[in-house]
């Protein structure tokens, strides 16, 4: 199958199609992790985006269902240099091509992903269209460029409501503690990290009102990761505002951004985001540096934290952006990275231990 990737600046790259036939639109983001493509594809935080891996050989170890971070592929399309059709790993259940077909997601291979990465680094994240068709069905370049330019910016799309639970759900086995997760697109690994520590969870939709959250009488409320621009998720921001002070609150990724917004801070879009499993985070309390998994296109504005009662506990060593916050007086803390890993290093599992301390 033919495939073309088109960027809003008019760049057209041709390659070979795999996965499903069709058209995908969204911003093109790159991930620098050398492993974990299954986890990334199924991570709800990638909803609305076309994902590109910088590592050139993808699909080597196939696909194992256990590695899913949600029940389906969440990205709109997948861009790689080279697809492995004959994977080799004892856990593999299918190859990557079949995986994309199963969830009707188009993919393109044979493209110069490094060139595209450098473009994003210089010009910032761009809107893109991925078209995978038989030759005769392939839209014209002009048409694709036009479409790419016309598509909405990520800040204009509601993504959280597409990836969260539709109604509250209980996960647990009579644990010692009880926590409500406000689901903006929570990853399975987060649920796993909490449940293995003996926490029972009520997973509720992002727009679940604060009073109903409190009806569960939780020991704490947890704000999950999720896709898109945090400033659009106004209902959750309001919910958090009402909950802070009432109950301990913690969050990851989008959870940190929403919490900050709730406390009066501001967020902004990063030029090309942090997506990978090698991001160094420095913790000011211990002076230690941890290697973390990250997946975010927005970040909290440092200066806007001043009057919010929040303080910065951790920063990214590469660009100094905010990685951890806590409230000076109230039981509230959050991180920008993904301590649950999946994929990535386990260095920051201690986040969950700290969360447990907050519960006790």
């Amino acid at each position: 199958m033919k495939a073309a990737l088109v960027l809003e600046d008019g760049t057209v790259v041709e390659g070979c199609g795999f996965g499903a036939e069709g058209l995908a639109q969204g911003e093109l983001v790159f991930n620098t992790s050398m492993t974990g493509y299954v986890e990334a594809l199924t991570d709800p935080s990638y909803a609305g985006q076309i994902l590109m891996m910088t590592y050139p050989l993808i699909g080597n170890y196939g696909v194992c269902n256990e590695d899913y971070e949600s029940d389906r592929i969440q990205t709109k399309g997948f861009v790689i240099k080279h697809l492995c059709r004959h994977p080799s790993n004892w856990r593999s259940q299918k190859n990557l091509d079949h995986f994309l077909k199963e969830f009707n997601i188009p993919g393109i291979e044979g493209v110069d992903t490094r060139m595209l990465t450098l473009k994003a680094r210089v010009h910032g994240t761009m809107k893109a269209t991925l078209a995978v068709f038989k030759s005769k069905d392939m839209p014209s370049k002009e048409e694709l460029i036009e479409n790419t330019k016309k598509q909405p910016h990520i800040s204009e799309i509601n993504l959280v409501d597409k990836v969260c639970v539709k109604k509250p759900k209980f996960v647990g086995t009579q644990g010692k503690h009880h926590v409500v997760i406000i689901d903006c697109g929570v990853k399975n690994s987060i649920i796993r990290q909490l449940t293995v520590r003996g926490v029972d969870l009520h997973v509720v939709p992002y727009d679940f009102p604060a009073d109903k959250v409190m009806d569960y009488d939780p020991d704490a409320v947890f704000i999950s990761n999720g896709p898109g621009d945090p400033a659009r998720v106004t209902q959750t921001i309001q919910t958090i505002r009402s909950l802070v002070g009432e109950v301990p609150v913690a969050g990851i990724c989008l959870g940190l951004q929403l919490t900050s917004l709730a406390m009066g801070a501001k967020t902004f879009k990063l030029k090309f985001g942090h997506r990978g499993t090698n991001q160094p985070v420095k913790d000011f309390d211990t002076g230690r540096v941890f290697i973390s998994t990250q997946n975010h296109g927005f970040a909290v504005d440092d200066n806007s934290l001043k009057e919010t009662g929040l303080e910065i506990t951790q920063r990214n060593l590469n660009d100094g952006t905010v990685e951890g916050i806590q409230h000076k007086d109230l039981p509230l803390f959050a991180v920008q990275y993904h301590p649950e890993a999946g994929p990535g290093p386990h260095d920051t599992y201690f986040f969950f231990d700290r969360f447990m301390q907050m519960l006790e």
Partner: protein
Amino acid sequence: MPKREDIKKVLLIGSGPIIIGQAAEFDYSGSQACKALREEGYTVVLVNSNPATIMTDPEIADRTYIEPLTPEILERIIDIERPDTLLPTLGGQTGLNLATILAENGVLDKYKVELIGAKLEAIKKAEDRELFRNSMTRIGLEVPKSGIIKKVEEASDVANELGYPLVIRPSFTLGGTGGGIAHNIKELGKIVKQGLDMSLIKQVLIEEGLIGWKEYELEVMRDLADNVVIVCPVENMDPMGIHTGDSITVAPAQTLTDLEYQKLRDASIKIMREIGVETGGSNIQFAVNPRNGRIMAIEMNPRVSRSSALASKATGFPIAKIAAKLAIGYTLDEIPNDITKETPACFEPTIDYVVVKIPRFAFDKFPTGDNTLTTQMKSVGEVMAIGRTFEESLQKAIRSLEIGRAGLGSDSKDLDPSIKEIIHKLRANDHERIFYIRYAIKKGIMISKIAKLTNIDPWFIDKIKNIVHMEEEVKRYKLDTIPDHLLKEAKTLGFSDTQLAFLLKSREDEIRQKRKSKIISPVYKMVDTCAGEFEAKTPYYYSTYEEKNDGPPTEKKKIIILGSGPNRIGQGIEFDYCCVHSVLSLKDENYETVMVNSNPETVSTDYDTSDRLYFEPITYEDVLNIVENERPEGIVVQFGGQTPLNISKKLSHDVPILGTKPDAIDKAENRERFAKLLNDLGIPQPENGIAYNIEEAISVARKLGYPVLVRPSYVLGGRAMEIIYDDDTLKKYIAEAIEVSPKNPILIDKFIEDALEVEVDALCDGEDVVIGGIMEHIEEAGVHSGDSACALPPISLDSRVIDKVKNYTRKIALALGVVGLTNIQYAIKDNIVYVLEANPRASRTVPFVSKASGLPLAKIAAKLIVGRKLRELNIKEKLESKHIAVKEAVFPFTKLPGVDPILSPEMKSTGEVMGIDYNFGIAYYKAELAAGMRLPATGTAFLSVKDRDKAKSVDVAKGLTELGFSILATKGTAEYLRNFGIETKTLLKTTEGRPNIVDFIINKEVDLIINTPRGKGPRKDGYEIRRAAIEHNVPYITTIPAALAAVKAGKALRKGTITMKPIQEYHAER
């Protein structure tokens, strides 16, 4: 944490001579460390016996001792220098073991020297097999079932419990030395014995052979704040049971899911903490069962290693440099990432390409050696290649090996083995099995079957299948019919133009033309540690066939320097040394320097060395591509040994060759032209002739009179060079030699017996000549110059001979038109000086001469190449000195069972050491000691010499008697010696019954063996004596001149004392 202010002086121990398992990578790590420490204001004291290293350059450390690496010498240096710290983790296993000894024997305490980087306890926990096993169990990691023993007799009990096959791993050795795989009790006994002998603490581990398990390695860094990062996961294509140094390896890991990779990562961090390596890099090896993912910890090196050098080159993360900074107190987040400048070193590199490393073997040099791969490393060098597909990297790596292959296959060099042969090679872990996997696929053998035979993951075999399919696809076309997309696709799979020419029945230049007309040219991408996430400031490139160059080349005036490719016997670190010096010197001359090389062990491929670095194969096609991208003023070919010379003629049509012109090279290497040149100059050379077939060869040899020295033309390291005494051997030789080099004739020289060999390195600018050094060989002519010990300045030449040598050197250099360096070898007999050969390029001895004399020959040569003149630079000859330097060669015999340790015209040594002092005898003693041979002061000496050496052996025996030795000899030698009044006891040969000499060796009743091989080819008796000497570590000498030198050494030691002085002081003396 800031750096430590309580320390001022750091002692660094180098790794000594290049040997199998410990090569140029420790020069790379050591020089990085020296630079890093001095940058921080510390005084660095360096000890290393290897003069061919960048680290022993007088400007790299503050005080550089080129001295033998023994505990006694180290103690003397510590006493003189009083360093406050010793950094033990950057000098390979040698440095680490010495540090361990000094810590354990109390020297470090006595002089209050602190170990930094790794404490004694951590070193022991990692290196001592029992402590390591216990540590792993403590942190819940599985290790293979094993038994640890200290006596041979205990082995069979362990074997009964574990079952065969078994892997034997000695404690505290490198490159798996003394280890191996045993399939039965007999092999077990043999390997265990050898392992116990070689282990520093006489301990070996016998473990279950994890047959079919996969092998992974992680490079880990830790700082004093306990921050830990993984630099790179490496997957071995070859499974457990093949030493990682002998395995084809790939970075990053390919077939692990994130879940599995994180398990290895977690385990590595746990191990690092449990073992307690405080700072720096360590290498941790795991076995993973491909059927269920079970993980076992195999071993850890608590120091930088060959693998860490590879990981540094593969990712751009300078492990050794950072390890040095961590050792003096910095934390990872305080050190900037050199490549990006703006981000810190506290992160994990991520790469967006595939790296393949392939070892380079030297079995062609040792036909009697066992060429199957086991846990004891046998390769002598390696290459690395970078590409955007595995296939591309693999084929680039294969053509980087310089074994005459242009890729995996279809380069006119393919064999047509039978299925039986293929299966045998695949199963037997043959060192060439990568080619046999291709043959197997071509014969239709299933991937699963190949995987089963080789225990190589099917993923790799599938990729090789892609290469085979592409060959078949391309073969369907001709040059004018092949579709553009297919041509491009073939290039993305790493096919060279040579392979495509073969497949399309065309020529390399036609393929190139076609490609260029279709705009199918490589682009150059950067190695940047971060997959493009941040801007890289260090121009380190590789080629690939994609859309876009990372950035345009600069517009500066620039010069390309070609490196020397993989280390091999005959072309080692000396040439990399010369390349690095030429780079530094050309920078001084305000040129932008562009380095091209394929060897990850080297200093030349450090991104810090040249202005721009291309990690590429050194072939005509790959170099020309770089030339077209960079558009340099010219290209330098005279520093990288034979590798660049081989393509210089072809390249000269496309780009100016700077310095000596290709025609001059041809004039020196073409025997007929060279003979004419010498004739015109009136300089004698041994009578010689040239032959293109057997009949001609015999008639030439008879005309010259036996013995003759024969060799194929255009070779390095005396490949296939032999002294021949009769027609029959000549016939046999030619059958083999022609196979070695089909297009080139055989060169036949009259061999001058018992001649003294002298070697000269000289500089020439086309008008003037400056002689860098005249070296007198210890061994007679006929022993390859690379294998012979030599003294500088000469010790026995009279001034008339020296004048003749100087005069001839000047004439030849000028007549050849040398601009830069040349090396000329002479044989001297009866005061006649014969020219043996002239090489108009940097030679193996350039670093030695530079270290001994203080004259940086390669740097000066580089300036001459760009038009500077010797007179203008005011370069003066320094042929006399108060001190004498002796170079000695170091051989791989202990690593290669079954190989006879005799010296011949074919080079066999892997490395060299230098001894320096004010007296020849002491300098020679030091050189021998540095080479691992501790000449005994007195004791029992055994002599067995061939008839031609009998007369001369009298002086040897007399000298030894004077030193108080008692003399043992075989019957013939003993009778001869008694005739001269030397008291000699007769000892039986092995063929004469028991107890014989070998029994004496085993029982350690002999302290020194002098055994000169009889006539041609190893005779069984001499061979057994020599092997026994090696295996039982008894000093042995195989030539009379070396024995005489040993006597001189003994006498000198009686009278004088050993000087201990840094090289900087020797140089300042004149």
